[in-house]
C-alpha cells in the first residue's frame, strides 16, 4: 500500500514540474535536519500538540466522566455537546490569536479546544456503558471512592478512554497544523506553507511526508495499545 503510493507519487513527479520527486523531497528534508533549521519548527509543532492534548485530556476526561455519571449534568451538557459538535472549532482561531497572540500558545489552545470534544464524548459513552452492577458490587465490598475509580471505573472504561486518547491526539495534531497555516511564528505547518510560497517544492513535499509519518506512527502506536486492551477484555 505504502509502496504503491510512493510509486504513484514518483510517477506523477515525472509528469509534472509542480510535483517534487520522492528522492528530491527526502533529500530536502534531510538537509533541513542536517543544518538543524527544522528543529525549531518541529519543536513548536510537537509542543503545541502535547500541550493542547494534555489540556484537552485534563478537562475532557473528568468532565466526560462527570457528565456520564450525573443525570443532571447529562441533561445539561448532552445537548450542548451535541450542538457544539456541529461548529467547526477552527473558526474560533482568530479569537485565540487575540487572546494568546501569534505563537505556540494560540496553537496549543486551538488543539485543546478541538480535542476536548472527542475525549469528553468517548469518556461519557464509556461511563454510561459500564455494567450498573459494578458500582453496586463496589459498594457491597466497601471499596473507597479512590478504589472504585481505579479498580472499577478506569479498567472498565479503558477501551473508551483509549479511543478518546487516540482520536484526541489526531484532532490535536490536525488543528495545530491548520492553526500554523493561518498564523504562527514557528511550526511544521508554517514551514510547509513558506516553502510553498517560495516554490521550494522539495521542502514542501518533504514536510508533508514528515507530518504524515508523525500522524501515522502516533496513531498506529495508540491503536496497537487499544487493541491489546481490547483483547484483554474480550
Amino acid at each position, binding site marked *: 500500500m505504502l509502496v504503491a503510493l510512493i510509486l504513484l507519487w514518483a510517477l506523477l513527479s515525472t509528469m509534472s514540474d509542480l510535483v517534487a520527486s520522492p528522492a528530491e523531497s527526502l533529500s530536502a528534508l534531510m538537509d533541513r535536519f542536517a543544518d538543524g533549521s527544522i528543529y525549531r519548527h518541529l519543536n513548536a509543532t510537537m509542543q503545541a500538540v502535547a500541550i493542547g492534548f494534555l489540556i484537552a485530556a485534563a478537562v475532557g476526561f473528568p468532565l466526560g466522566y462527570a457528565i456520564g455519571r450525573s443525570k443532571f449534568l447529562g441533561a445539561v451538557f448532552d445537548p450542548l455537546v451535541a450542538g457544539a459538535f456541529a461548529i467547526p472549532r477552527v473558526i474560533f482561531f482568530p479569537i485565540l490569536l487575540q487572546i494568546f497572540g501569534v505563537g505556540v500558545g494560540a496553537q496549543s489552545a486551538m488543539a485543546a479546544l478541538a480535542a476536548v470534544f472527542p475525549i469528553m464524548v468517548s469518556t461519557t459513552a464509556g461511563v454510561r456503558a459500564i455494567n450498573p*452492577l459494578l458500582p453496586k458490587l463496589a*459498594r*457491597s*465490598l*466497601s471499596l473507597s471512592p479512590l478504589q472504585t475509580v481505579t479498580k472499577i471505573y478506569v*479498567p472498565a472504561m479503558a477501551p473508551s478512554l483509549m479511543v478518546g486518547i487516540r482520536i484526541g491526539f489526531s484532532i490535536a495534531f490536525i488543528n495545530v497544523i491548520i492553526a500554523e497555516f493561518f498564523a504562527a511564528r514557528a511550526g511544521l505547518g508554517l514551514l510547509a506553507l513558506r516553502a510553498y510560497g517560495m516554490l521550494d517544492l522539495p521542502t514542501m513535499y518533504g514536510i508533508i511526508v514528515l507530518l504524515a509519518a508523525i500522524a501515522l506512527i502516533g496513531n498506529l502506536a495508540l491503536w496497537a495499545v487499544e487493541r491489546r486492551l481490547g483483547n*484483554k*477484555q*474480550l
Partner: protein
Amino acid sequence: MSHISPIDSVGHDSDVVFDNIGMTFGTGTGSTQAVANVSGAIPEGKFVSVVGPSGCGKSTLLDMVGGLLKPTQGTVSINGETVTGPRKDTAMVFQEDSTLHWRTVLDNVAFGLEVKGLPKTERYESARRMIELVGLSGFEDHRPGQLSGGMKQRVAIARALAMEPRVLLMDEPFGALDQQTRQFIGRELLHIWEKTRNRVLFITHDIQEAVYLSDEVWVMSARPSVVKEVVTIDLPRPRPEGTHSLPRFRELEDHLWALVKVEAEKTLGPGARLA
C-alpha cells in the same frame, strides 16, 4: 431500657435479625411502601429463601442486610450489631453478570480479598480453593468473556465465598440462567453450602429451587410486603438427586405455590391467571 424487642421471640443475638423493618421509597403522596413490618431471623448455619410476587420487595430486603439500603423503619442486625452500611462479614451475589471483564477468573475471585488488603500469595491461595470448590479449576487464567453465563455466576459465587462471609446474600443468582444450568448449579451450590454452612439469604422466583435448597422459605405478601408465612422445609439433608420427587417435596411445593399464587393475584389484579 425495658423495651422488649421481638428479637427475643424470633432469634438470638448471633443471628441475622430483622426487627420490624420497613422501607418506604420517596416521600409524601408519591411515596411507595415497599416493605412493611418484617420481623424474623436467620439462625446460624441456616439457608433461608425468600419467595413472593414480583416487586414485593424481596431484593429490597436483601439490600438492607447487605447495608446498601437503610430501612426507613426498624433495624437489621447481625450478631447483635445494627447494620449501618456494607459489612465485611456479608457478601453478595447478584442476578446479572457482575464479573470484572478485564480480570482473569483468578483475579476476579481474589478481588474482594485484594480490596481487603490481603497479600497476593494469601489471596490467590484462597481464591484457588474457591475456584476448585465451584468447579472452575483449569479456568483460572480465562477471562469472563470466554466463559458461559453459568460459569460467570460461579465466578461471582466464588468471589463472595472467598470473603468467608457469615452471611451470604444471593439475589436471584440463577435467575438469568437457562433451566438446565440452573438446576445443575443449584445442586452444586447445595454441595458447597453443606461444606461451608454459612447463613444464606436467597432470593428467588423459583419455588422448586427454594424448596430444594432451603431450611426455611419465607413467603412475602404483595406490597407493602410482610412475611406472610415461614415454611420450614423438613426434608432431610444431604439432599441427593431424586429429592425433587419425594412426596413431601411435592407437598411443600404445592403449599408454597398456593401461598404465592394468592399474593401474585393481588398484585396482578383479580382474574389474573398463573400457570
